[in-house]
Structure formats: C-alpha cells, structure tokens
C-alpha cells in the first residue's frame, strides 16, 4: 500500500529521520513506536506531504508521492489524523466532518457524502449528539473521534494515526483502539499507527517498527516485538530481571 525507501529528512541542520525504509501492506495495522523526538511524527508528515524529504522515495499504490502537495495526496486516498487532533475548534462538529470530504465535494457527490456522514455518526454516536456544538467544546476523547471521523470522510484506503491515545484516560484509549481494529476488520482500512503507548499499539498491530533517534532499530511481527527484551526495557516499562 505504501512503501518508504531510504528516507532522509532534515529540520534545518538537524537530521531528524535517517535512511528509513518501511512498508505497509493492504489490510495491515502497522505500529511505529519510539520515544519522544524519535522522528515518528516527522515521518508521518513526510508521507502526507506536509514535509519534503531531502532524499528517498515514498510510493503510494505504486505511485511516487514524495513531491506531491498534501491536498492531492488526500485525494488519492491517504488520510492523516495529526498529533493533537487539530480539529477546527470554532466550527461545528458537523462542519468539521463535512470539511473532511472537502476534496470530493461536487453536486454529484452530495448524496454519497451525506451517507458517509450518517456512517460516521453511526460509528461515533456521541458526535451525532453534539453535531451542532463547536468542536472546541468536546472532550479530548470526543475530539479524537471527531478527528478520525473527519479523516474517514475523505474515504481513504489508508489511515495514518498520530498518537491517538495522547492525553486520554485508559478506558477512552481502549475505545479508540477498538475502533481502529474495527475500521480494518469491517471496512478493510489499512492503518499506520504512531504511538508512544507502545503496549496498546503493539497489541492491536500486525507488525511493528521501532524508531530511535531517526533510525529504525527493530522491526517484526507485533507479538515478537512485545516479547522482545530490548523493547520491553525501553518502551514497555517492564524490568526484565524480574
């Protein structure tokens, strides 16, 4: 679905991402874990076109997208739910969702968009209750649902999720992760999931990559990574000697 080959990204003189290669196959949930400042968010922003990589190639459905503008990338079926959710706070919940379908607005698509809106409301009933409210008045968990719903309104084939559990209570986090799995199982969505909360992410993922200071240091099936002693020590907060 997407393939990254030898990606290098710089912020000024800082080498934030170093020769990273990874791939996500259709229907997979892939977790990208690592500590603060490892380059996870930077990598996602490069895939969605917000940042230009200095070197390397990004393929989406076989086409190179590393030089494409973000709005064209969204139209080609790749949606990115950004870190911190970034909902449009003064706009209503419904307007936020409709803006998610901005790229495919036309008179012909109107009915389709209406159906998709109903589907998102069915998935997150709380958003329907609050449809007329300003998005800024929602709780953190509701804003995360709104951000995911907004991304789904673009009818993506692949969803990039950046720290969906950030700042949420554990039970809300579990609900969000349950939805992520459901999106894949029910709608065949492919997911690339970035998380600091490594344990929750690896539990729902098929495969995982571990990023440290801009490099991929480990990769493999999610259950292997969960059992890996280095991963446990560094990211799962478990003392291996016990």
């Amino acid at each position, binding site marked *: 679905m997407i393939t990254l080959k030898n990606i290098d990204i710089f912020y000024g003189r800082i080498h934030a991402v170093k020769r990273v290669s990874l791939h996500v196959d259709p229907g997979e949930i892939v977790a990208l874990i690592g500590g603060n400042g490892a380059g996870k968010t930077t990598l996602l922003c490069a895939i969605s*076109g*917000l940042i230009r990589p200095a070197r390397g190639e990004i393929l989406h459905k076989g086409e190179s997208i590393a030089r494409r503008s973000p709005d064209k990338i969204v139209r080609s079926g790749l949606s*990115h739910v950004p870190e911190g959710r970034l909902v449009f706070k003064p*706009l209503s919940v419904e307007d936020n969702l409709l803006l998610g379908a901005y790229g495919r607005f036309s008179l012909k698509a109107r009915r389709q968009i209406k159906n998709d809106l109903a589907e998102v409301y069915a998935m997150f009933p709380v958003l329907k209750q609050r449809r007329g409210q300003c998005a800024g008045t929602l709780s953190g968990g509701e804003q995360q649902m709104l951000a995911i719903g907004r991304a789904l*309104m673009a009818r993506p084939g692949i969803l990039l999720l950046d720290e969906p559990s950030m700042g949420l209570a554990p039970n809300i986090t579990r609900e969000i992760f349950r939805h992520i799995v459901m999106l894949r199982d029910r709608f065949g969505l492919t997911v690339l999931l970035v998380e600091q909360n490594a344990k929750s992410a690896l539990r729902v993922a098929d495969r995982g990559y571990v990023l440290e200071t801009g490099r991929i240091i480990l990769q493999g099936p999610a259950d292997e990574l969960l059992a890996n002693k280095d991963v446990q020590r560094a990211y799962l907060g478990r003392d291996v000697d016990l």
Partner: protein
Amino acid sequence: MDSASLLQFLISGLTVGSTYGLTALGFTIIFNTTGIINFAQGEFVMLGGMLSVFFMRIAGLDEASAIVLAVAAVTLAGALIERFTIRPVKDASIINLIIITIGVSIFIRGLAMLAWGKDTFALPPFSGDAPIALFGAVVMPQSIWVLAISLLILSGLKAFFSGTIYGKGMLACAQDKKAAYLVGISVERMVLLSFMISGLVGAVGGAILAPITLTSFDVGVILGLKGFAACILGGLGNPFGAAAGGLILGVLESFGAGLLSSAYKDAFAFIILLLLLFVRPSGLFGTREAKRV
C-alpha cells in the same frame, strides 16, 4: 443643536462608515486566511473608484458596466498581487509579508499617479442628485445606494462563509493551516481566493463612495488607515466587528466634525481608537486572547 442636524450627521456618518466597513472587511478576510495585514487594501478601494472613472470617461462605457468592469479588474489585481508578490515568498515571516504589502501599495499608488495624474475625479451619482427629505434631514440618493450595496456585500459574505464548503474551508485555513492541508484543502488556492475577495469588496467600496467624496490617486492612504482603524475597533479578525467598527467610526467622525470642528475630522477616528485600545486592547467585539500554558 436640533434633532434634524443630528439625524443628518448620523446619515452621513453611516454612509461613509459603511465604506470604512467594507475596507475593514477586506482586511479581515486576508488576515483571517493568512495572518497578513494587507496594507494595499486602501489601494483596492482607490482603484475601484479610479478605474470606474477611467472606464467611463476613456472607454466611454455607461456607469454600471464601467463599475462592474472596474470591480472585475481589481479582483484580478488582487489575484496578481498574491500570485507574484506573496506566493513566491510564502514561507517568509508574517512581518516580511506585511512589509511587502506596503511596497505593493506604494507601487500601485505610483502607477495610478503616472497614469491619471494628481487631479481629483468624480463619478456621477448612480440615480441623480435630487435630495430626499427625511424628518427634516436630507438624504442623497447615493447614500441609500451605499448603504444598500454594503448590506448586500455583507450578507453575501455571510452566506459564503457560513453556507458554502469553500467559505468553511477558508475559515478552516484561518483556524489551522496544517489541519486544512490534511483534509485536502489547497491552502495556496484559498489564499489566492482571499486576495480576490478582498479586492472585490474594496473595489465596490471605492466605486460606490466615489460619487460622494471624489477620488484621486492617493485616497487609498487615508481610507486604508480608516479601514484598519475600523478593524481594530471592532476586534481584528471578526468580520461582524469589522463592519460594525466601520459604521461606528464613520458616525463618530461625522458627529465630531459636525459638533466640534470639521478641521479635526480625520483625527477623531484615531483618538477614539487610541482611547479604546487603552481600555480594551482586543477591540469592541474581539475575544480576549487567552493562551493555555
């Protein structure tokens, strides 16, 4: 002072105030999508008036088509300004972009002076100049045109921003550029559109005001400043505040000139602005900036 004169001041204040309001709206639209204060906004107003005169006199068109053509030309000028002076340096800091707009305004003023000289021009009133009596005051038909067209523009913008996906997309750009990109909005195109709409609104203001106040190559300076003052008065970034700020400024100015002295007409606006900023830095209708830390 009798009530008829007071009513007279109010009417002339509202008339001039609505063009301040239109100028202020132009500032607001660009500010909201880009964070830039476009100091060439006054030049849009000047061009609206001057080009209408030009198309009428030189090209020999009737007044309505001259104005339509002038407004279209200024809308296009707005697009060209964005495309050739703002977009090539769009990653520069906001303050640099603002300074560019000051340069653009000087450039346009210079061109206008070279093309049309330093004379003042008048546009004939849209429907004659037979005054209408109203409770002892006198209303010029042009005043009614000004108020009606301003109201029309205002409601048109309101419908655009709250009723269409493009208007909402523009608000989304203002709110969060990164998120706007991620839902598939081409932010560059929105910035271009904001300059075009600002050009259009400014030009309409210039064209409808020209029969009342005359126009020349340099009317944009003072109109731009007044429009900016109206923005600040109403609260920068709030379209409703911009329109209201314009009206309030126009009325205050008119009463100041009528009741105190017309020599200080231009000073009233700025004195009131300063006083307000001491008391309420965010403007009358602005929300106080609160940052979470």
